[in-house]
């Protein structure tokens, strides 16, 4: 029976002639990636940049420009609007960076509104407190209701409650901020009074915390009014503190993964091999990273997963090639000449070529299928993987064995410098295999 194969096994292709240029390419990858990301910047996803992202589906086509105008009117000056998914789905991705719709000038207005409507003599005794990072809340401090000295605690509490209700009504109707309507457990109707909470009066003043409708609701409402039905299909909000933490964790994760794998290789093979694994890994990972630099894809949590998968796959394949080189090298001879070493390496690469192609193809089939069909949330994940895996096919064939070859040639007269040649000691591969299979 005839076997199907990509290459005739009898013929040996000369890969070594491309070794030197392949190393230049490998060195170029991180340089391009680093310079590129400094010059062009990285399109940080919501996970790492913080902010709020919404996926909105409209019932009819809406131009991104129109949505931008609406956002601009609402006071979101840093925003991104882009089409999402298929063209006929009328879906848009909206991202806003500043989270609060409460601006300093609003504070002044709220102060006026309260002073004019709550029978407070002077605006100065109304204090408005807010934090631009908190999306849907502000506080006001106003004089507590004045009570005669003879008033009972119950009367005082009741006066406070009246003030509470009055404040909620005034703010909801006149401040331009709609208070959140919510039900208390057991109540039938939603009420704005639950959106206001008061603290214990202190020194004649009482502080109220006011919750108004959230940013996503507000944007959704206004877009619905303008463009007909607008369904918010997905909302993601990440606080700047969390995003910072995620970023540090992400960098550490990649670092630890690489470190752990390299330690494994150093133990498993001898020291000539490790640097090549690093070179291959650097080429593949930074190469895949170019997707984010030049493709402008969002760099988010799944992207880290994709990069780590590329790291894993890159090392696997390097290991397989190395395993072959180790096997092809004649054992026991320490002083091989250049030609012999070169031949062994070239033969090992040839021998594993068919496997490299097949494996790359099967994994690429998976990642491309994800890219084309799954799309959405894991699109950048799939693209990163596809690029990383494709680049990988070259790094295992060229850069990794090249590094080994050059190192071995350079140190060939001093092999005792790195004495642990595993092929000369310990159980043979056959013995090991028999123990388990």
């Amino acid at each position, binding site marked *: 029976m005839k076997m199907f194969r990509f290459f005739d096994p009898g013929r040996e292709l000369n890969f070594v002639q491309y070794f030197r240029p392949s190393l230049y390419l490998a060195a170029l990858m991180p340089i391009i990636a680093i310079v590129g990301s400094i010059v062009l910047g990285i399109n940080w996803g919501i996970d790492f940049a913080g902010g709020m992202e919404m996926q909105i589906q409209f019932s009819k086509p809406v131009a991104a420009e129109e949505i931008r105008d609406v956002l601009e009117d609402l006071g979101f000056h840093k925003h991104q609007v882009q089409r999402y998914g298929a063209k006929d789905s009328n879906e848009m991705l909206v991202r806003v960076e500043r989270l609060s719709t409460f601006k300093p000038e609003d504070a002044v207005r709220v102060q006026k509104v309260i002073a004019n409507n709550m029978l407070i003599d002077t605006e100065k005794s109304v204090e408005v407190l807010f934090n631009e990072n908190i999306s849907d809340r502000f506080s006001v401090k106003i004089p507590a209701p004045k009570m005669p000295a003879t008033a009972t605690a*119950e009367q005082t509490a009741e006066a406070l409650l009246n003030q509470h209700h009055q404040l909620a009504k005034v703010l909801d109707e006149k401040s331009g901020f709609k208070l959140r309507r919510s039900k208390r457990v057991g109540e039938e109707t939603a009420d704005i009074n639950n*959106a206001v909470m008061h603290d214990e009066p202190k020194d004649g003043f009482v502080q109220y915390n006011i919750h108004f409708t959230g940013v996503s609701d507000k944007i959704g409402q206004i877009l619905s009014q303008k463009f007909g039905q607008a369904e918010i299909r997905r909302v993601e909000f990440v*606080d700047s503190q*969390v995003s910072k933490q995620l970023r540090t964790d992400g960098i550490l994760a990649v670092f630890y993964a690489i470190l752990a794998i390299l330690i494994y290789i150093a133990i498993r093979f001898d020291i000539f091999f490790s640097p090549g694994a690093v070179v291959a890994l650097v080429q593949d990972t930074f190469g895949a990273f170019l997707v984010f630099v030049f493709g402008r894809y969002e760099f988010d949590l799944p992207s880290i997963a994709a990069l780590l998968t590329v790291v894993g796959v890159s090392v696997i394949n390097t290991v397989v090639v190395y395993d072959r080189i180790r096997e092809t090298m004649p054992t026991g001879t320490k002083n091989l000449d250049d030609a012999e070493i070169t031949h062994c390496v070239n033969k090992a690469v040839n021998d594993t070529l068919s496997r490299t192609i097949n*494996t790359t193809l099967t994994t690429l089939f998976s990642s491309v299928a994800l890219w084309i069909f799954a799309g959405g949330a894991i699109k950048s994940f799939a693209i990163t993987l596809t690029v990383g895996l494709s680049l990988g096919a070259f790094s295992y064939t060229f850069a990794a064995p090249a590094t080994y070859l050059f190192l071995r040639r350079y140190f060939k007269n001093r092999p005792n410098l790195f004495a642990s040649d595993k092929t000369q000691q310990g159980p043979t591969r056959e013995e090991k295999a028999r123990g388990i299979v």
Partner: protein
Amino acid sequence: MYQTWKLRLLLSGILLGTAVYALVPTFIYFSLSEAQLKEVRRDKDAFSKYLPKWSISNHIVPGLDLQGGMHMVLGVDVDKALSDKTSRTADRLRQFALEKKSAFTQIELMADGDLQTRILVRFASPNDLSHFNKAVLDQFGELVVVSQDNSSLTLQLDPRLVQSTRRDAVDQTIITIRNRVDKMGVTEPSISKRGEDQIQIQLPGYDNPDEAKSLIGRTAQLEFQMCDDTTLFLTALKDLPKDVELVTSSYHRPDGTSGKDIFLAFNENKLIEVKAFLKGKVSSENVIKYGKSGQAGLGPVMMRTYTLYKKVVLAGDDLVNTSVNMGLETDPRPGVSITFSATGARIFDELTAANIGNRMAIVLEDLVDSAPVFQTRISGGSANISMGGGRTREESIKDANQLSLVLKSGALPAPVTFREERSVGPSLGADSVKSGERAFLVGSLLVILLMIFYYRLSGFFSVVAVLMNLVFMLAALALLGATMTLPGIAGLLLTFGMAVDANVIINERIREELRRGKMPSSAVKTGYEAAFSAVIDSHVTTFIAGMVLWQYGTGPVQNFAMTLLIGTVLSIFTAVFITRIFFDMITSKGPKELSI
């Protein structure tokens, strides 16, 4: 070794059967209709009725991105809880010093870094200071001295107390949030602690982010209402629903008389019926609220009614702190001490003065927890609720702990902020399921075709092994009751692609041996042995990458890592063990050729 292939085939057949058995509930779960799914989500036990009797019930759960829902991370401001505690301690210190007539010029809070967690006490003379040390500070075991000079003393809370305060703040917030979420009608919610001061909340199928946020983030709904034990309207009711009983019990008043507690008792599942029955029958000044009665955990939960006055006399905002005590000098029974705010203390004082001998219901989130009797007028802002008789001391302490927790959990102990919030609408979830399925089908089909085209019969063996790998993976996930998200599907598909890799390595090796002129049976043997180290190495490295992802990742990323890890481990087994069976099966007849 190839003689044993029959035995090994049998073994793998049994394993495959077990895996398929484990997947039965998952299969049934994913074929439920929309309405059935809703029912199952509401009531976990309902799922068992769709299962055959012999089946287990663990199944794969669709993640939030596939079925829609909300994911939130709340940050608990534990620092605020700490500075609040310091401030209250300072208040108590001041009061106690005044009582003991220990002279000081000032007691004030002092900042330690950004936080007001230190107490500075100033004195006019060193004598005052040493008197204060002896008479006052000895009673405050929770305070430690940070620094001291002739005329001042800097104190702060004991580090152990600081630790427990921080921890309690988060734990109590979790309890409160769980109570609230339970009442939102969300099913299978997951509420867990993340890191030191964060709480992760997942609400599958819930799609109203704003409402969820306002329900979860608001302050407590702890209320105190007086019981109306004078009205006899319940006794006048006729035609009580079936299995609803009218009960009259009496309690002792401090003046020696006894009061009557009249209520309806019924099983929990009658609640809606009883509510409907009582509607319109209650007088305008009263309101009926419900509470659990009887012991928890034994048999069906019994509920009872409480007839209360409508007016809410005190609310949770007025409660500052609670703690369990093992009995006081005046009353040896264990109880719960409550501290009220200044306003609360005044209201409580007036209330108790007017209501000695009456009962006050403690209503948490509209459910009556208990209704203790006022034994005496209570001034000074702290009250003690003694646990009732008829219980052992141990049980009473347990009750006290429970009540203290209920009272405390009424008030969120520290402010919370929303740190992270992700919500996915159900329609998007359905789309994701569809696209995930399609990606998986196309991807795996391409892999299968390539393998069969390239390696022919041997390729087919690999495909069988890889498919078995998939079944084993899904079975493992189902047994773990794991969540499946879109990244999880990506992990499955990727493992599918990579699991073939082991077979590719082995097949290539066998081909080589054949080229060298070996007979199929010995080519297979050496092929497997030579390829083994490469297979192991490649799996170990993937495993390492997966472990790191698992460690670092959250939610979806962790899901991806989990499928990767499980897949890697199983793939060694299927690639090396399963395919070998097939090879041994065909080479056992000693053929001259091998389709590879």
